[in-house]
């Protein structure tokens, strides 16, 4: 049914709108194995490539964390692990997890796969650049891994890479190639992510299908979109600090290096400021944590609404909150520097902005929970992970309020309280969303369900286990146990009960860690042997479930792009027969709709 003109549609003569005469995207067509699977320009393939690379390097970081925990709790089991190795593991674990796993997975993995599908596009707007961006990321990972094999080993400066220690001889990798390779790897990563980020942002802004306004996009897209904008503005600060530190290390400049006496020897440096590095790093670093968190916020909103069969409560406020959180994230960075020796008057300003940013974040939490109220909740595995996210995120966000209040940060800074806080809010909560998202979209990507029994086991052990790891850890921080300590060795201050708690945490960590291997096994076997899923098995509304084929093929939607007639959350619409109406269903096609919704 086609309209003669838009005026016909506007006056209601018929209400289906012809699909957009879209400039056929210059969809390249792969001709060989190499261009089909390796140098592929299809965003879905690139998304999977990002995901596999990110998870692989993430597994390395997870094993490093096991070794660190064993050293802390049962040092006699790891005699080969000296302080230098320990600090190298601390650094690589942190850097890999934050940047090479979480950022790459959320933006590169989920972004690439879901954005074109959810906005109704055939692919990203610059497919060639998109393909190059993955290989640049891959190169960055290779350079990072190479730093393990250079003389002196990888850098052990902590993921925050503070100078002067990062480039002096008292730190592992400091006076060798270790730190330089890390800095180069980060710079390469930033270049790659600028290329990718361009794609995500411009595809969302310009390549949506007919009828898909910005406010009809699912919150997943809003989360990834805002995160990408943040990345484009924040990553330059990281690459600037990397360039300056590389010059300090290799060419003896003094951007960050004051005059120091290294083990009795006067240095040639003078006049630099270590605090300048901290400002640059955290100007990047704080938006970075929101780059990880905002996609998680968006995804969890969609998981909750689909599995509770209810529209996300307060969609407008949710979008506003995402945008405001993104904007505010640029004026809170120095809350990481309260005890850095910076001008103490900055403490007043940054404490205020930090606590202000808590307000839109709290709003989002309220809206998630109110979405559940009077819902029709299916306790599927994605829903379980979403619920666990709320518990862990509220917990982690609240401990952030402790630390954001400048005077409370004074006793707690650099203790295990901080470690527990950031693991809970960045390690556990977004990763629970990643797991939920994988269970949710697995039927789309492979056409099969993940095994449910293994999934439930994975969920309970991961959720309860992680909570048991990090909740008590906050109390170690109250005791005053500092972070980045290779060993605690008993002193009047660090009692035997502290050591016992450490041991408990380590055992929990190992159990949770091993369970992830079960999850991997589930993914690998279910991809081929899992129970087959029908199209749109969760009965969701958004466009990615409306592809012509499952799994979606090149071009995503077959011959005609979908036309969008409604927002992404028409669940349980009064008067409609089904409890969901997909976005591309026009009002006249809705079964059982006697009257339009009131």
């Amino acid at each position, binding site marked *: 049914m086609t309209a003669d003109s*838009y005026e016909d*549609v*506007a006056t209601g003569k018929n*209400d289906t*709108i012809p699909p*957009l005469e*879209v400039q056929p995207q210059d969809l390249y067509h792969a001709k060989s194995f190499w261009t089909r699977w390796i140098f592929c320009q299809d965003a879905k393939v690139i998304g999977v490539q990002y995901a596999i690379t990110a998870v692989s390097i993430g597994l390395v970081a997870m094993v490093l964390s096991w070794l660190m925990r064993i050293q802390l709790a049962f040092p006699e089991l790891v005699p080969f692990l000296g302080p230098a190795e320990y600090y190298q593991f601390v650094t690589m674990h942190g850097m890999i997890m934050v940047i090479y796993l979480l950022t790459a997975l959320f933006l590169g993995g989920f972004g690439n796969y879901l954005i074109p599908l959810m906005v*109704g596009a055939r692919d990203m*707007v*610059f497919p060639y650049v998109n393909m190059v961006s993955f290989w640049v990321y891959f190169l960055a990972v290779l350079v990072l891994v190479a730093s393990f094999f250079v003389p002196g080993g990888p850098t052990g400066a902590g993921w925050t890479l503070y100078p002067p220690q990062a480039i002096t001889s008292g730190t592992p990798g400091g006076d060798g190639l270790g730190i330089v390779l890390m800095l180069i790897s980060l710079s390469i990563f930033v270049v790659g992510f*600028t290329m990718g980020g*361009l794609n995500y*942002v*411009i595809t969302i*802004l*310009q*390549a*949506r*299908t*007919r*009828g*898909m*306004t*910005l*406010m*009809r996009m699912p919150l997943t897209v809003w989360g990834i979109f805002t995160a990408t904008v943040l990345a*484009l*503005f924040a*990553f*330059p*600060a990281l*690459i*600037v600090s990397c*360039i*300056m530190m590389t*010059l300090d290390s290799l*060419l*003896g*400049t*003094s*951007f960050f290096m004051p005059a120091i006496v290294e083990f009795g020897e006067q240095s*040639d440096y*003078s*006049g630099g400021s270590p605090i*300048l590095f901290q400002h*640059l790093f955290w100007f990047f670093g704080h938006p970075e944590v929101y780059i990880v968190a905002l996609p998680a916020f968006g995804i969890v909103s969609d998981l909750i609404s689909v599995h509770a069969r209810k*529209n996300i409560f307060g*969609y*407008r406020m949710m*979008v*506003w909150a995402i*945008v405001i959180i993104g904007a505010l994230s640029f004026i809170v960075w120095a809350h990481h520097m309260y005890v850095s020796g910076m001008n103490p008057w900055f403490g007043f300003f940054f404490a205020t902005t930090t606590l202000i940013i808590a307000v839109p974040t709290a709003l989002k939490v309220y809206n998630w929970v109110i979405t559940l109220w009077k819902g029709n909740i299916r306790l599927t595995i994605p829903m379980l992970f979403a619920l666990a996210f709320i518990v862990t995120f509220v917990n982690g966000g609240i401990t952030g309020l402790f630390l954001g209040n400048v005077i409370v940060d004074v006793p707690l800074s650099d203790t295990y309280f901080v470690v527990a806080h950031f693991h809970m809010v960045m390690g556990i909560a977004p990763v629970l969303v990643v797991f939920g998202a994988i269970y949710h979209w697995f039927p789309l990507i492979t056409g099969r369900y993940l095994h449910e029994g293994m999934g439930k086991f994975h969920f309970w052990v991961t959720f309860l286990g992680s909570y048991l790891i990090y909740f008590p850890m906050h109390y170690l921080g109250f005791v005053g146990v500092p972070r980045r300590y290779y060993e605690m060795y008993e002193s009047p201050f660090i009692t035997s009960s502290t050591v016992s708690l450490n041991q408990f945490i380590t055992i929990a960590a190992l159990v949770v860690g091993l369970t992830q291997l079960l999850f991997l096994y589930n993914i690998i076997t279910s991809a081929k042997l899992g129970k087959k899923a029908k199209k749109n098995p969760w009965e969701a509304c958004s466009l990615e479930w409306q592809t012509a084929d499952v799994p979606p093929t090149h071009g995503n939607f077959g011959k005609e792009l979908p*036309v*969008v*007639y*409604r*927002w992404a*959350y028409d669940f349980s619409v009064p008067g409609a027969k089904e409890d969901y109406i997909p976005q591309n269903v026009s009002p006249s096609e809705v079964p059982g709709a006697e009257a*339009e*919704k009131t």
Partner: protein
Amino acid sequence: MKKKENIFQILAQKPWDPSQAKIDDMHEGGTINLSKGKLGLRFIMFVSTIFFCLFIVTYSDRMIYPDWQRMPEPWLLWINTIILFFSSFVFINAQIASKNNKFEKVKNRLLLIGFLALAFLIGQLLVWQQLITNGYYVSANPSNAYFYVFTALHGIHLLGGLVYWNITIKKVWSPNDIEIYKVKYTVELCAIYWHFLLAVWLVLFGLMIFS
């Protein structure tokens, strides 16, 4: 059918509202009235601007300290600046020629621009060589460090521009096979980027002269 809406109006819409839905159904799918190439270029320029601004901010903060020693001004830098001006002028010429479908002219202009860019880069390297032989090492003084950093980063951006210049040249090369629309588009994007690099250079150069 597309009204110009600002971001606040967009975010205030109620997408579930049936009257809003009727308006939204007409939406063509784009938010900004720019081609994707132009929008992409703007993003790149924006990211680059933030990148250079961060250096400039730290530079301004550092130069007020007593141990700052100004660098000498090699006259070659002025020559290089003139080369950049000339490049932009030639590019404007090329843009006009491409508008008038005179593609032979466009080809020649582009070749000249490529040559000028190489001349500029070589000129910058010569300046470096001059300064190093006169003892102005990068580690000697923060003002030296910033000079080398500014010139190096600007040069790297120009090298990146040359990659795109190469794509542009390829599109204009074979006279029988030209896709006119694509050539005009690419030439324009390349030109804007070149003007952007000129602006960046003027700011950096000006900063170093007047500090």
